[in-house]
Each structure stands twice: as C-alpha cells, then as structure tokens.
C-alpha cells in the first residue's frame, strides 16, 4: 500500500487511482483492527466458537483478497503520456454527468472500450457482510470510482477515443437520476416505448408459433430482451453524439470501415445484444446531419457580420462539406430491408427521437451543443489553416485593416484581471478535436480513392489512409493532443490564477 501510495502521491492526473487507494487503505485498516479484536476475543471462546470465528475470518479475508486483485489491477496499470492531456477534460465530462465520481482511465489488451461500474461498491459490500457499518458509511463518503478501459494499441489515437463518449453514455443510462422527471428518465422512457410495441411483439410470436405456446413465450421473452438491448445501444449512440459531437459518428464510421463485418456477412447478421452496425450508423448519420444543420443555421444567423467565411477559416464550408460527407457515408452503408426490422423501428425511432430532444436535460453541463461547435469552429479552422495549434480564442484577433493602430496595452493593475478581460479564453477540447478531425477529413487528405476488396460498393469518400498508421494520421493525432494540452494549461492557469501568483513573483523581487 505504501509503495502504491508513493507511486501516485504527486500525480494529480490519477484522481481515480488515489480515491481507490483511499478506499483500500481505510478498508485494510478496518480489517486489521477487526482481526486484532477477534484475536483478543479468541481466548474467552469455546473451541467450537473459535473454529467458527476462524472460518469466518478466512472467508472474509478471501473476499478481501479477491477485491484487492480487482483494485490492484486498476491501480497498477496507469494511462500513458499520450493519453495524459485527455484526463482533465474527460474527467470534467464524467463529473458533469456522474457527480461525486472519479475515473481511472486504463489501457487494455482488448480491442474495445469498456466502462465498469463503481469499484468502491465492492468494498462497501465487503464491509456490510463483515458487520463493519462504520467502514461502509466511511466508504460511502468517498467519490464513486469508474474505470474506463481503452485499447492500449490506440492510446495515441485521439480520433478513436470518441468511443469513450459511448461508454460514458452507458453509465448515464444505467444510473438514471431518481429525482429527474419521468420524461427524461431513461428507464421510464424505455419502459414506456417497450410497452407500446409489446402487444404486437406477442402477436407476432404467437402467429409464428401457433402450436408451441412455450416456445412462443420463450421467443417473446428473448425478443423483448433483445429489443431492450438494441434500444439501449441506439440510445447511447444518440447521447454520445451530444457528448462529443460529430467526432463520434466519424470514429464509429472508421471502426466499421476497418471492421468491414457486414461485407463478409451479406445477410446482415443481427445479434442479440447489439443491432447491426450499419443500422446504428444510419441512425447516427441522420442525427449528425441534424447536428450540422443546426450549426449551419447558426452560421446563417452570423451572415450579416463583417467576417466572411474565408476569414472564419472556411468554417461554413467545413460544415457544408461535413454534411455532404455524412450523406455519402450513409449511401455507402449496406441497406437493411425495412420489412425485416419494421417492429424494431416502431420502438427505436420514436424512443431515440425523444432522447435527442431531451439530451440537454439528461447530460446537463456535459452536453456539447451544435451552437458551441459552430462558435468554436471558426477559430479552430482559422488557426489550422495558418498552421497554429487551435488552443485559445483571442476575441480581438481581427482582419488587418480593422485592427486599431495600438491594438493592445498592458494594464497597470494586474489585480483587476478577470476571465472576462483576459487576452484569450481556452477553446473547448471537443471543439479542438471535432474541428481538427473535420479539417483533416476534408482538407488535409482529400484523396478520394480507397483500396478495398468489396467490389463496386467502394466507399469512395473516405480519406485513403483512414485508420492506417499513416504519417498524416499520426500528425493530426499529435496536433490534436498538443492543442488540447495547451488549451487545458490555459484553463488551469485561469482557474488557479490566485494560487499561481508565485509564478509571476520571483525573481521579480530580486530585480
């Protein structure tokens, strides 16, 4: 424990690990105290009672050891340097939707993203089972610790980390806010929509299995569960779009493009837990187009401003071309015959539409709105065009002919500094990733051809080297990581302005 503590003590980028260590040390201290008390008690007990006590102690110790294994695995493998700059913004996003939580981001040998439930609960259960109510209450006061795993192989591939938005959405839907009105509670919403198709689902199964009622009941139960799971997947996709923006749609498209599963399974194999990826992408494509359209509408509202699109770095052009790209991706997707999924669609389409409409309420401060996307796209695009990392928005950055003769003068009174009067403000990290991704897809690597074995259905819209370890991909990932890091440093400096006065003072005093 002491060694683990020393290892992470000064790493403020491991808050989740520190919270786990806190929980662990409190529990271990309580366990050792319990053992000591039992040792004292032992002498006054009969032989049978002593045996019972020893047996219980062994069981309790075994349970604690199992838990230790889980914890040590979460503590022992920490994220690498290439992921470091994402910790703060991702943590902010998680805390906005799951308050009183901490996150451990962990590279995994698997090829998928996964979010685990609260790890502290495991120790809480142990404390209750061992009659340690005080320890249980003590543990309840700690933040909830969530472990989000990502493929170690993709650690530096920021563009793929949009899938964390999907995993986080799973956590949000798994733990609906009990105080929220039914309208925005996912469990209530799911139940309501499932009820609306339940009768038809029963009827369909009965019609298919007239002579085997038990089989019909089993099939109905299986279908109901499948419907629920599919609805969940569509719902988390929808929320992920509102958490991280169009970045999620492009990341999922890349995943599908590399996977290529539906091309080797032309029958569009459907799974019990996940709907077909083509269908998920088609849904998401429609939602992404709406997202872009809202952004474009914002752009139209800005039309009377003196900035034309060239001065905005071609931001409006990016939005319009982004719309076109989404449309082409949708055309590339294998079509699922509507008749095959008619009933599923009756459930999923209205339920997901309702989730989109309520995304703001469900995601609270974590929502990344199309309006924010549009506001930030201009400085991001402008800077990328000039080869500058898009980290900060400088409001007084203007066209040369409108810059004042003496554009800026330092203020004498540093104490009067406020975020409103600051030289610049940090750009939202999601704007940096979304803008850079779009810029890369549409500007940096416009080669329309892609080699594949899929015959005439070639996806002729994706950049040639998408998802390959190309120089271009490495460069854009490095640029995004660097820009997010700079933007976070600026944010941190603003947040800690009062505390960071020593940074301004020495060695001034010596001058």
């Amino acid at each position, binding site marked *: 424990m002491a060694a683990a503590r020393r290892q992470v003590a000064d790493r403020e980028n491991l808050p989740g690990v520190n919270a786990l260590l806190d929980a662990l040390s409190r529990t271990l201290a309580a366990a050792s105290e319990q053992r000591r008390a039992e040792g004292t008690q032992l002498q006054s007990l009969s032989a049978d009672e002593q045996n019972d006590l020893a047996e219980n102690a062994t069981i309790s110790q075994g349970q604690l050891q199992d838990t230790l294994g889980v914890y040590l695995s979460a503590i022992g493998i920490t994220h690498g340097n290439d992921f470091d700059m994402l910790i703060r913004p991702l943590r902010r996003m998680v805390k906005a939707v799951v308050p009183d939580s901490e996150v451990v981001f962990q590279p995994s040998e698997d090829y998928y993203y996964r979010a685990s439930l609260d790890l502290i609960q495991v120790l809480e259960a142990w404390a209750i089972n061992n009659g340690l109510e005080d320890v249980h209450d003590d543990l309840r006061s700690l933040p909830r610790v969530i472990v989000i795993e990502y493929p170690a192989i993709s650690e530096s591939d920021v563009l793929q980390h949009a899938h964390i938005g999907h995993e986080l959405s799973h956590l949000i839907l798994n733990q609906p806010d009990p105080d929220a009105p039914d309208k925005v509670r996912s469990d209530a919403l799911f139940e309501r929509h499932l009820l609306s198709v339940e009768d038809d689902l029963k009827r369909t199964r009965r019609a298919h299995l007239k002579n085997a009622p038990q089989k019909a009941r089993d099939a109905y139960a299986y279908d109901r569960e499948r419907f629920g799971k599919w609805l969940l997947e569509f719902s988390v996709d929808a929320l992920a779009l509102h958490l991280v923006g169009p970045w999620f749609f492009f990341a999922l498209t890349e995943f599908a493009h590399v996977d290529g599963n539906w091309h080797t399974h032309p029958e569009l194999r459907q799974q019990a837990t996940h709907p077909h990826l083509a269908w998920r992408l088609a849904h998401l494509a429609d939602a992404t187009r709406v997202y872009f359209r809202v952004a474009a509408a914002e752009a139209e509202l800005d039309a009377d401003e003196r900035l034309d699109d060239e001065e905005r770095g071609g931001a409006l052009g990016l939005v319009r071309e982004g719309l076109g790209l989404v449309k082409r991706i949708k055309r590339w997707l294998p079509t699922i015959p509507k008749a095959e999924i008619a009933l599923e669609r009756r459930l999923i389409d209205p339920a997901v539409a309702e989730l989109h409409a309520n995304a703001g309420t469900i995601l609270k401060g974590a929502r990344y709105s199309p309006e924010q996307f549009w506001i930030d796209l201009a400085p991001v695009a402008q*800077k990328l065009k000039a080869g500058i990392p898009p980290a900060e928005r400088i409001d007084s*950055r203007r066209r040369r002919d409108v810059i004042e003769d003496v554009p800026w003068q330092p203020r004498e009174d540093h104490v009067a500094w406020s975020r409103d009067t600051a030289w610049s403000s940090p750009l939202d990290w999601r704007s940096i990733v979304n803008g850079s991704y779009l810029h890369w897809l549409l500007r940096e690597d416009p080669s329309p051809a892609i080699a594949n074995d899929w015959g005439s259905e070639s996806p002729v819209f994706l950049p040639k080297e998408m998802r390959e370890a190309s120089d271009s991909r490495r460069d854009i990932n490095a640029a995004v990581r660097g820009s997010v890091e700079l933007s976070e440093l600026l944010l941190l400096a603003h947040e800690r302005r009062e505390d960071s006065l020593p940074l301004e003072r020495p060695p001034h005093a010596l001058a």
Partner: protein
Amino acid sequence: MLSRDAYTRLLLDANSDFAITPLIDPDTQFGLASVDLRLGPDLVITRRATGVVAYDPGDAEAIQDDLERYQTYVRRPFGSRFYLHPGEFAIARTLEFLSLPTTLSGEAMGRSSWGRLGLVIATATFIQPEFEGTITLELANLGTVPIVLYVGMRLAQVAFHEVTD
C-alpha cells in the same frame, strides 16, 4: 527588433500566421521589445554520472545509450515545484508554442533576474523564420544554492526581428 505594438499587431492579425499560444497573461508577459515565456510541464533531467562516463560524439551508439541511462523524462503538473541543484542540468521546453512567419526570426534568452541567481536558461537561442514548436530550454544551475522552479513560471524571453532581403 519588433516593439510591443508591432508584435501585438501581428499577433492580433487574423491573416497572420504568427502565434505565441497560449498566452496566459500578456499584462505580465509582454515587454517593450520582448515576450516572456513560461516553463512547460515536460522536463528531461540529467542524473549525476557514476563511474567513468563521457558523451563521446565519435561513438554514436554509446552516446545514445549514455543519454538513455543518464537522462530521465518527467512530466510535472502546472504550478508544481522542481528543484535544480547546483551543477545540475535539465532540458525543458516553453509552455508556449511559437509559430513564426517567413518575415520574422526570434531570439530566446534568459531573464536577467534569473541569471543573478545562477540560472542559465538557453544556449540555442536563435529561432529561424517559419519555426513551429516550443522552444527548448537548457537549464543549468551555475550557482551554489538550489533553485526552485515552478511549472508555468516566466523563465525566458523572446525578441523578434524582421527578416529582409
């Protein structure tokens, strides 16, 4: 050399590709003819050599091994302390990313007040036009007393010059 008004005008010009980003506090960072730069979070610390060791440019393979053996990369949080002991050497980079247009060159140097404490800050001081990146700082404590440095502290300064045909 560019005056404060001149470089500020360029930094605020939306058509220019001149940038120093992020600028945490221009009130303190902008000098009359220079901009203060801050210590970034990445450091490469050189540990004291034990035994008979020398960097020998004639033996490229050995020098690489020695560098790996005696240099350690560390990343420190913003605002955290870092001790530079007498005789110690560390490589750091500025917190700010610089992008220079074809018409500007730069010159990075230490701030004199640090020099009076025995801290030498940069040796490779010239910045070519079209440079893009952070400035590498070679920190050496030539004094006899340890110096405490904070990540984010104003450590160096850069002056800009117009490049003409």
